């Protein structure tokens, strides 16, 4: 970020585990095509619950990607994070076997909204079904929202600064900012991102109190932000992990720079106070632009938060107008998450991955299931739109009131 002009933070690797694809390539193909994978919830034990539509990760076999000794002691959300981290490290060609790299030169930062609900539910059922002696010891670590950071660190031997950001859904962007700060302070590389698994029965029940959750049973109509038929959001599982590095170190080892993490800012305006989020989100955008030394007109594409709640959608459109001025109604805006759902903290990291891929390919992916936008925004719908893209703005808000904005600049990698 800006104050570290001598130590810029760049993205050199991306790993994605999303409802529309496991791997950044599969994710991008489906995202660019605007394919919606929102479907009826099929997870065992969820059939009778009032949440009917979600974005499930269905083609994911953890045993093919992660060693059994890690699987037995971790929840699905950590399986996602570990698999995504592997993919990101492979993409960055940054392995645990780099002999000349100090283990203290690489750290891990994740964001998490809910922790290991599926693992926790299983152990709690044993507690009340069989007794306390039947609760396994790994319950003590698997449910914990810091589990993914810890396990990625242990598995990769990454002994640099590690942490977990618990700041609501927008924490996915805040984790990236925290990783950039860590790099500015001297760490060479960070494995950073978020993945969530909120579709176990217990986890879904925890979400049923959210008045912003969509109750529509038809997948194509359940999540339609920025339209007159906006009716709330659809939850999802999955997420993404990135490798970010100090630019000089990345170039020295021959890594390809996929994008530059140029600026970030975050604000807080309180839970379910969507009208107030206008001012908070606008302030976050202004802060991120200032941090990136970026003029509003330089933003070539916006990846919107797109909650799908009318008041929140209006607040986001107005926040963009407040912060970008007249440019807000001209810049292409997209929300590919309408095709996969909102994976809580994983959502803005997936948007960041999509933004990086957009910058690389010169294409703005569309917003699935959205037609007839009712705000003064140029929302890309239907088909992907080719465009010269150098700078992207990613926005995120959480149900508990966090707002964040991230500015990404184009890297030097050409699409393969």
């Amino acid at each position, binding site marked *: 970020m800006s104050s570290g002009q001598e130590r810029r933070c760049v993205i050199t690797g991306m790993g994605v585990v999303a409802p529309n694809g496991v791997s950044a390539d599969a994710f991008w193909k489906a995202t660019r095509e605007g394919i919606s994978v929102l479907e009826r919830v099929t997870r065992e034990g969820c059939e009778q619950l009032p949440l009917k539509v979600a974005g499930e990760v269905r083609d994911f076999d953890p045993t093919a990607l992660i060693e*059994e*000794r890690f*699987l037995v*002691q971790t929840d699905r959300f950590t399986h996602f994070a570990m698999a995504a981290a592997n993919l990101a490290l492979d993409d960055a060609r940054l392995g645990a076997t780099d002999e000349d790299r100090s283990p203290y030169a690489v750290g891990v930062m994740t964001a998490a909204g809910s922790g290991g609900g599926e693992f926790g539910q299983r152990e709690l059922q044993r507690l009340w079904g069989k007794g306390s*002696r*039947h609760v*396994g*010891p*790994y319950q003590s*670590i698997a449910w914990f929202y810091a589990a993914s950071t810890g396990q990625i660190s242990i598995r990769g031997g990454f002994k640099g600064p590690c942490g977990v950001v618990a700041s609501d859904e927008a924490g996915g962007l805040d984790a990236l900012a925290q990783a950039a700060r860590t790099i500015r302070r001297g760490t060479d590389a960070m494995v950073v991102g978020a993945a969530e698994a909120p579709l176990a029965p217990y986890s879904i029940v925890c979400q049923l109190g959210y008045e912003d959750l969509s109750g529509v049973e038809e997948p194509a109509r359940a999540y339609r932000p920025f339209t007159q038929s906006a009716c709330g959001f659809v939850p999802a599982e999955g997420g993404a992990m990135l490798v970010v590095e100090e630019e000089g170190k990345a170039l020295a080892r021959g890594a390809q720079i996929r994008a530059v993490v140029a600026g970030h800012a975050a604000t807080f305006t309180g839970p379910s106070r969507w009208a107030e989020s206008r001012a908070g989100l606008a302030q976050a955008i202004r802060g991120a632009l200032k941090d990136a030394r970026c003029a509003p007109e330089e933003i070539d594409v916006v990846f919107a938060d797109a909650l799908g709640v009318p008041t929140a959608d209006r607040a986001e459109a107005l926040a963009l107008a407040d912060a970008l001025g007249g440019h807000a109604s001209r810049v292409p805006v997209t929300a590919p998450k309408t095709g996969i759902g909102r994976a809580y903290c994983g959502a803005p990291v997936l948007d960041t991955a999509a933004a990086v891929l957009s910058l690389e390919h010169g294409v703005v992916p569309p917003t699935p299931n959205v037609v007839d936008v009712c705000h003064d925004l140029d929302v890309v719908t239907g088909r992907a739109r080719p465009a010269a893209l150098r700078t992207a703005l990613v926005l995120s808000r959480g149900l508990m009131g966090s707002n964040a904005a991230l500015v990404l600049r184009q890297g030097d990698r050409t699409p393969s």
Partner: protein
Amino acid sequence: MSERLTLEELAALMKSAAGLTVDPKQMAALPDTPFADFGLDSLGLLGIVGELENRYGATVPDDAERCRTPRDFLDLINTVSTTGA
């Protein structure tokens, strides 16, 4: 417990409780190798102790989860079982 715990059974428990694939012959050849070298951490050993307690309805001594090697662990478990504790 009515029977002595064997290295084969310990290896099976390491698999089920901690996801570790360990050759019992290797443990027999090097019984003083620390559990950590086989990849078993303290929580994994605790899980094995819990499984033994549930399986045999016996109380395993508090020290069991502090054993550092397969030999120490089998000696402790089997001493207790043969003395009827």
